[in-house]
């Protein structure tokens, strides 16, 4: 099969990416600006033998995709801020029970109902910390329809590999932007499937992991698995009063992501070779930033762009190393300083600058250029 060229919006590209990744179950609830994903899945899933269901709310949508994952399907939902808030409880259940699934959040401006039709990037911390308790999550941030396609496939692969809900943190502008999308030939796309148990049921320990991630037996496969959101031992049985079991479990749930940060790291560096100042950005803000960097370079400023494609786990080590080489970091994001906190944590407060937007509009390249000049000249 040859590659195909399509003209897709980010939302449609993400839906098509999901189908290519093997998604066969979608449960969702209408919400601007993500609804096109549900609509496209309603149209396309039946054509590939998958099930689409519109649920009564986002609590149900998230619960249903966990159920479907245990039924053996690759599953996903898509939403925006208010719906993402409702999903948090069951994202925690997904993290605790190690259920592979994908959640797309096409961010709009919040808090609360906020600006439903306009862009925001303020759910970054919610994606990381939204559910209660200690857990780790993976979150990816595409900056073009092409990346909506590519990173949604990657999100499914990582969900299967690490058995964790993976968040695709899109934003309204990227979701609604139409661009050329190249669909590679099927044999050029890497698809990952969850590890299945190789031992007979009587020897199977559903939550015992050799290398952080246990093998997963789904319903109807004869393993009589018990899955619970309670603290559980390697057999999957509740041990809700044993701090040692809790320690073992929570450490593993966090470490399976933390200790693989380097593997999960996905950063695009642009004009970084001799850069003295680095813009740090992601999603739509990284596009404005790129234009600003190009313009600033033409005017002789030694500035580069660090674009985060993997947002969580945050690349601490990467920034720690850069702290010596780069004089100043300017974080460009459509929120009041969320990724800025992460950068600051690694490179120090005096080196970190923020160019925020509160939502509803994207940065103009000239605003970023002005900030570059200001920081460059030591103001």
């Amino acid at each position, binding site marked *: 099969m040859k590659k195909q060229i399509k003209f897709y919006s980010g939302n449609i590209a993400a839906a098509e990416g999901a189908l290519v990744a093997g998604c*066969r*179950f979608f*449960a969702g609830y209408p919400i601007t600006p993500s609804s096109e994903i549900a609509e496209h899945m309603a149209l396309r899933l*039946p*054509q*590939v*033998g*998958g*099930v689409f*269901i519109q*649920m*009564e*709310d986002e*609590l*149900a*949508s998230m*619960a*249903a*995709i*966990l*159920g*479907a*994952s*245990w*039924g*053996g*399907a690759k*599953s996903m939902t898509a939403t925006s801020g208010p719906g993402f808030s409702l999903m948090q*409880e*069951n994202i925690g*259940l997904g993290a605790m029970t190690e259920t592979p699934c994908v959640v797309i959040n096409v961010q709009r401006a919040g808090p609360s109902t906020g600006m439903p039709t306009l862009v925001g990037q303020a759910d970054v911390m919610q994606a990381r910390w939204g559910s209660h308790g200690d857990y780790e999550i993976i979150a990816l941030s595409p900056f073009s329809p092409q990346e909506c396609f590519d990173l949604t496939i990657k999100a499914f692969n990582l969900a299967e590999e690490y058995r964790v809900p993976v968040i695709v943190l899109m934003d309204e502008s990227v979701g609604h932007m139409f661009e050329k999308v190249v669909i590679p030939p099927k044999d050029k796309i890497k698809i990952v499937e969850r590890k299945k148990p190789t031992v007979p049921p009587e020897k199977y320990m559903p939550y015992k992991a050799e290398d952080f991630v246990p093998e997963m037996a*789904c*319903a*109807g*496969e*004869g*393993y*009589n*698995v*018990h*899955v*619970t*959101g*309670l603290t559980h031992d390697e057999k999957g*049985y*509740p041990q809700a009063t044993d701090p040692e079991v809790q320690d073992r479990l929570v450490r593993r749930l966090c470490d399976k992501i933390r200790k693989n940060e380097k593997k999960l790291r996905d950063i695009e560096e642009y004009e970084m070779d001799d850069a003295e100042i680095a813009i740090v950005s992601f999603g739509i803000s990284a596009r404005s930033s790129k234009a600003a960097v190009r313009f600033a370079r033409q005017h002789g400023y030694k500035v580069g762009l660090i674009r985060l494609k993997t947002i969580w786990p945050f690349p601490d080590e990467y920034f720690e190393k850069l702290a010596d080489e780069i004089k100043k970091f300017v974080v460009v994001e459509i929120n009041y300083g969320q990724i800025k906190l992460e950068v600051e944590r690694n490179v120090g407060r005096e080196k970190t600058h923020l160019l925020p937007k509160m939502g509803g509009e994207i940065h103009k390249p000239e605003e970023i250029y002005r900030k570059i000049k200001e920081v460059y000249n030591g103001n």
Partner: protein
Amino acid sequence: MEIEAKSHPLDRYLRADRIPHIWCPGCGLGTVLNCFLHALEETDIDLKNLAVVSGIGCTGRVAGYINVDSYHTTHGRAVPFATGLKLANPKLKVVVFSGDGDLFAIGGNHFIHAARRNIDMTVICVNNYNYGMTGGQLGPTTPLEARATTAPYGNIEHPFNLCHVAAASGAVYVARWTSLHVRRLKESMKEALNKKGFSFVEIIAPCPTAFGRRNKEPTGLETLKYYKEHSVIKHGIDPAEADIEMGGDIVVGKFVDIEKPTFDEAVHELIKKARK
């Protein structure tokens, strides 16, 4: 003389390594679970394809004792979890086992919509009139005037009639028994398990620890005596007429048994058409 340890005929259905269970003396849950296992024994459901899903609460612990694929989910979300499970793998027989608070307060919206869609699943609800695990707070089924820890002056809320809610929402099979009606309950469970579509069985059960002792029935036995004296079997009546009141009769029986296309059939039919 040595006493020979013999296994129980229902052992194969249980995770014996998880017994003893957590339920209080006098609780109705053991009886209800026993009826369910007997019902399984008398149907030809392949245990390999049986999945039990629970929410949170005392009844929510049922999933942890049955030796099949079992899922103990979040509070109120057993039904939508079960919906995903069933739709992803149509071969499964999916049973939701949970309590009145879990299914009808925090999970009420999911219940009515799963019934409306006629998702092919069996929902077994043990109704003990209160939140037992958290210590006896009032719930959506607490009868008017009954006492609960969050209704210390007596309940002023009108309770749900669960069978009425289920029937009005579209369930194709609706029955109510008390935990005293073990044989009839088992038969209803069998019918519900064999029914295609959204089937619902409500079991009124004692909770002496959290509810009974605040409402003049301090032991399970007293509550069972009450069931014996006040249960009235009325098959086929409009469940709207089967409200439950403090000190009143408990109307039990099979109220609804109808045929209706299921969501599952419809969605797989739709897939066939779309693939042509």
